[in-house]
């Protein structure tokens, strides 16, 4: 019955792990998938926000008050997102939220924040619907899928001159939104796709779809989805002798993409759209170096999350902790962040889209394409 003991141990470990203390006054929620299949992204969000909060507190906090972060786990499930959002505004009395990660969580949660007059800045939800609903309190420091799709489509049609394009997506809000945005722009340029299909997230065998791509003789494959599916997909394409160019969006921005694909040789030549490298800004050099010094690679959404926290802090600081005034303030003013100057339009989107095309090489690194 050793099991009983294992359980007890885990409980003890859990208690120790949960005992995180921070004495402070301004409560800011960090909402994202801290458990579940996308916990890796939740971790990126938390790391960025945590570091930003520490740095801001070290400089005297917001309006003289210290930031206290609350980890809010939605596991990327809308049901949990609603309940955790209510908890943040109600029990934790958060004035602002950095999050959520998945667009499908951000959309239902944003309504609750709007009703409660809480400021919401998402570092990662790129679905256009989030800001299209005209909520005054919702901002994002990342781009929108349609902007990303535009960049990809014009590259595919213009630079690659592709005529036979296969479009795949992972049937999820993000992946499908991205694929649809890219498809619409591409169709507007006069190129029709030869294949448009969804795959099932969580599966690893895409051989059937790959064979199908072969049968339609595509020369470009565009995939809207995350690296967990993109890795096996690109590998199985190459294994079946398919040499079509593989293009995806910012969902594959992770070192894991290479290890999941099995070997850097498989990702050689893969293209993706992503915001201009978040670690490349001069303003963020110190923070990036500090991250690396503490053994954390500021990959993916870490810097976005840091930026989101800076945006929140700046707005609350300027309006003496009034989140409703802070929302109005953000629509008017621009903010200096570790990712350069950020300015929001009326919907809460960034005024400047900074999506560019990146290419992976045979060493497993990605570099910005100059064009």
């Amino acid at each position, binding site marked *: 019955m050793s099991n009983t003991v*294992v*359980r007890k*141990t885990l409980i003890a470990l*859990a*208690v120790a792990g949960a005992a995180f203390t921070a004495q402070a006054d301004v409560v800011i929620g960090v909402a994202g998938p801290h458990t579940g299949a996308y916990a890796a992204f939740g971790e990126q969000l938390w790391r960025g926000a945590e570091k930003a909060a520490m740095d801001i507190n070290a400089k005297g906090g917001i309006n003289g008050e210290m930031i206290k972060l609350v980890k809010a786990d939605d596991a990327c499930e809308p049901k949990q997102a609603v309940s955790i959002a209510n908890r943040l505004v109600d*029990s934790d009395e958060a004035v602002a939220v950095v999050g959520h990660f998945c667009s499908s969580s951000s959309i239902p949660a944003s309504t609750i924040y709007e*009703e409660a007059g809480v400021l919401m800045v998402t570092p990662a939800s790129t679905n256009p619907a989030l800001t299209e609903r005209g909520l005054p309190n919702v901002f994002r420091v990342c781009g929108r899928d349609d902007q990303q799709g535009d960049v990809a489509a014009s590259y595919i049609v213009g630079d690659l001159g592709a005529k036979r394009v296969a479009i795949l997506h992972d049937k999820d809000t993000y992946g499908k939104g991205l694929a649809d945005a890219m498809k619409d722009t591409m169709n507007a340029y006069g190129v029709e796709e030869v294949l448009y299909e969804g795959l099932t997230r969580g599966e690893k065998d895409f051989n059937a779809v790959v064979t199908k791509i072969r049968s339609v003789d595509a020369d470009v494959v565009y995939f809207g989805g995350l690296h967990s599916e993109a890795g096996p997909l690109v590998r199985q394409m190459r294994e079946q002798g398919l040499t079509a160019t593989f293009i995806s969006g910012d969902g594959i921005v992770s070192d894991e993409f290479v290890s999941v694909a099995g070997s850097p040789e498989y990702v050689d030549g893969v293209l993706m759209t992503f915001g201009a490298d978040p670690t490349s800004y001069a303003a963020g050099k110190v923070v990036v170096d500090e991250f690396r010094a503490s053994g954390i690679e500021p990959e993916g959404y870490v810097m976005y999350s840091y930026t989101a926290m800076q945006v929140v802090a700046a707005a609350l600081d300027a309006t003496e902790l009034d989140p409703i005034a802070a929302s109005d303030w953000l629509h008017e003013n621009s903010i200096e962040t570790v990712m350069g100057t950020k300015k929001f339009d009326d919907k809460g989107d960034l005024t400047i889209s900074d999506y560019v095309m990146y290419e992976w090489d045979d060493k497993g690194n990605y570099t910005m394409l100059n064009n």
Partner: protein
Amino acid sequence: MSQETGINIGSSIKDTIIAGLLALIVFGPVVGVLLDGYEFIARIDDVVWIVAIVMAGRFAISVFVQTESGKKFVYRQLTKEDGVSVTAPDYKSKMRYIIPIVIVIGLIAPFIASKYVLTVVILGLIYVLLGLGLNIVVGLAGLLDLGFVGFYAIGAYGLALGYEYLGLGFWSMLPLAAIMAGVAGAVLGFPVLRMHGDYLAIVTLGFGEIIRLVLTNWTEFTHGPNGVSAPLPTLFGLEFKRRSSDGTPFHEFFGLSYDSAFKYIFIYLVLFLVVLAVLYVKHRLTRMPIGRAWEALREDEIACRSLGLNHVLVKLSAFTLGASTGGIAGVFFATYQGFVNPSSFTFFESALILAIVVLGGMGSTLGVVIAAFVLTVAPEMLREFADYRVLMFGILMVVMMIWKPRGLVRVTRKGFATRKGVMK
């Protein structure tokens, strides 16, 4: 079987060493070797800790079961009573005092509770409805249904899509969704009537998955993974929004200042009354011929058929009633969340509802209510454990099953006595 009263330390030590070795094999690689790209980081000390704790625990348990109180404990565990307890004919349940108190508390609660607590309780009540629905199918009729979430989805999407395409609101969809889900239950019921036990389970699982996949893939109609927004309920046409699209919102009509809690309080009250009504109906059903037919069919199908019971009708009625309850729960879920998308209707949800029924004690109405709250409130309480939350939830499920394999509440049945003056 030994009659020794002393504690055999030698065998305890042997058990302990075996447990330690197993812990080393099981936890050693997964905990001790942390994968890092194609390389790894060794974490030997974590493994040592786990193995040491496992061994210490095994030793403690091994010694404990050899003591007097330990033996008694093991004996109690082995001789758990089975079956149904029958109360005396003139037994008056204490429930008749408890129920009115619970109702009063339930009606006052929303005005005191915080919004967060209220949302958790709403979710709990939704799962009570789901549990009651599945309880008819699994607990009473004995048909293992792993795709119950399908009916839940029909209800939720019924509200969202009915509003979008037909302009139907909460109040018209509430009965309509129940009917739609009921029809779906009957349609599913027909082909599966021939199947038994676990074949039925996998077919219903397939049905639940099919519904979810269609909702995901039929983008033109359901908007696929992007989901659909669902309307809020109205009180005689008054809306619970800050700014009403047509007419006066609720708070202006009553001259109150706007509070987003109003809509939750309203949803809660409606839901609470619906749950009470459903509870009453379910309670009566088990005493009516149809309810007794369900249970009889669960116990022995062949005997029932030879006694002239129409098993098709009985099974179909169980499926239909169960499904329509699931549909009602779906409507409440959609309106509470204001948004539905297919990711809320995965197989895990079906498993959770099934866990409510089994944990509640298969057929016990009170048990379902308690279990529904335990299983929905527990994950919220476990938020303190942060990353360990779902792990703790899994452990809770296993431990509760081992501790109470028959469920939390045992089914009681009222005894009968011949009335005075009736001929013997």
